[in-house]
């Protein structure tokens, strides 16, 4: 007869899990900063609200806004491409399959998250990475950001020199039915990202309260998780 395991004194312990690797954190904050700069300058470019008077040669407001927009766009695009590359080489929390509810586990996680958001489930979600819903939302956000880069490159062909390598992207314009539609999609994309940001910040604060250090983890990389440590003893 085998010995029966007997559970003695389960204790709570806090374990730090390394979730967000350096490229994930770095690209996250570069994307945040560049989107902030791109939104402010982009909003001005779409609807210039600042009025200046006097001779035109004394001012360069739109010109300056556009230059800042272009440099921020370079940072944004490079950060996004590093992050997309990391979808395929990063750790289990950064990989591409986190952004699609493909596995049974991800589907279950999505269901649990939906239950959590609808107040049905009382417990915080135990999974250290993204919840299934968050992963799906970020997948859509990656897609929107990718479209922003594509439409941005299409718009840049207007300003790039005729012999510039950027003219290679001119074929994108007819795919969107012309430059005006590219402008429209680029502008809609900005609003979608800003609306996402509101939701994202709220949920990060929520999880920081219901769980631990959700926001800190995007700086440190570590998420602390409470686990119940079970010690087993055997009857002699």
């Amino acid at each position, binding site marked *: 007869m085998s010995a029966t395991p007997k559970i003695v004194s389960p204790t709570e312990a806090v374990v730090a899990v390394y979730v967000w690797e350096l490229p994930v954190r770095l690209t996250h904050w570069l994307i945040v900063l560049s989107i902030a700069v791109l939104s402010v300058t982009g*909003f001005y470019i*779409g*609807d*210039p609200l*600042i*009025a*200046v*008077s006097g001779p*035109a*040669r*004394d*001012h*360069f*407001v*739109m*010109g300056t*806004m556009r230059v800042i927009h272009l440099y921020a766009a370079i940072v944004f695009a490079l950060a996004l491409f590093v992050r997309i590359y990391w979808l395929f080489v990063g750790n289990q929390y950064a990989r591409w399959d986190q952004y699609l509810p493909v596995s049974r586990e991800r589907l279950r996680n999505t269901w*649990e998250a939906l239950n959590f*958001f609808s*107040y049905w489930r*009382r*417990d*915080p979600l*135990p999974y250290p990475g993204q919840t299934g819903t968050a992963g799906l939302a970020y997948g859509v956000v990656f897609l929107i950001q990718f479209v922003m880069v594509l439409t941005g490159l299409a718009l840049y062909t*207007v300003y790039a020199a*005729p012999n510039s390598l950027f003219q290679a992207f*001119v*074929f994108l*314009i*007819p795919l969107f*039915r*012309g*430059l*005006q*539609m590219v*402008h*429209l999609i680029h*502008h*809609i994309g*900005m*609003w979608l990202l*800003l*609306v996402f940001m*509101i*939701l994202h910040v*709220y*949920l990060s*604060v*929520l999880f920081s*309260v*219901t769980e631990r250090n959700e926001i800190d983890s995007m700086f440190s990389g570590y998420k602390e998780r409470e*686990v*119940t440590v079970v010690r087993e003893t055997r009857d002699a």
Partner: protein
Amino acid sequence: MAREQSWLLDELKRRGISRREFLGFCAKMAAILALPSSAAGAIAKAVATGDKPILVWLEFQDCCGNTESFLRATRPTVAEIILDTFSVNYHETLMAAAGHQAEAALNQTVAGHPGQYIAVIEGSIPTGKNGAYCTIGGKSALQIAREVCGAAAATVAVGTCAAFGGIPAARPNPTGAVAVGDAVPDVKNLINLSACPMNAENITALLVYYLTVKQWPPLDQYRRPLFAYGKFIHDNCERRAHFDAGQYVEMWGDPAHRQGHCLYKMGCKGPATSQNCPVVRWNEATNWPIGCGHPCVGCAEPNFWDTMTPFYRRLPNVPGFGVGSNLDRIGIGAAAVVAAASLAHGIGEIVRHRVGTKPSDSDRPSGDKK
């Protein structure tokens, strides 16, 4: 069909146009084609002594605007005479012949000179109801276009309707109108001269280029000649300095409008439209739309009626939000709704005492731990 050296000069003399004016025209053509002034001599020689190409000009779903644009010269110009160097065998609006006589002229040209004539097409081609929306002499526009353009040495689609479908092809496109390039899949040497109407200077320059260089000019991705469509209106605009400075017209007749500031906020589509309007201008280079205080409507671009409207707004209407929808208002509305929903959800969390308290062990379902 080679001509004698002197015929053009004689003709010019007969019409009271000096050789100086003719050379001025050649220099102007060289300028439109972005060639050095030394090219003017070559152009003059080629135009005065070249062969006489045959031209047929067909009109389909059009308003005759391109023909009108073409005929709008206020006095006999050299350009007109250059066109006379082309034997225009068929032109519905201009020809003296009518009925069967006219059709015979067209058939004779197509059958007698296959691969030698130039077809100029004005207007879009309807494909709906088997082409019944536009028939000439019992044949549909689609049939005629396939016959005539299929056997032409080159096809020049003049105006936005012929080049891209234009207004007849705008949503909901009741006649199934398409551009010449889409209607005739095997068209050879298609050249699109879009704009509503196309600038007569550009077709003249195109034909002069062909007479001089004996080939067709380099084209952009929409098959438009780069000499006329290689630059955005915005880039050659005389008001560009005001755009870069940040000085915009806010309302018709406001001080900025009176001072000639940028029309960007009034919906100018110059930044999305390529054409040489700012350089070549209209009505013998008198002026052009932006020059007289009206924003560009983007008439030279594909899908212009669908994507360049509303003409006095920066962006097109947001799909699904109706005419006159403002994207920024929709965006602010969506942001407000999401912010309010987040706030409500957060209050819900607090009300349920979940925030700040740790769930007890008994609350924890055993299946959640991995």
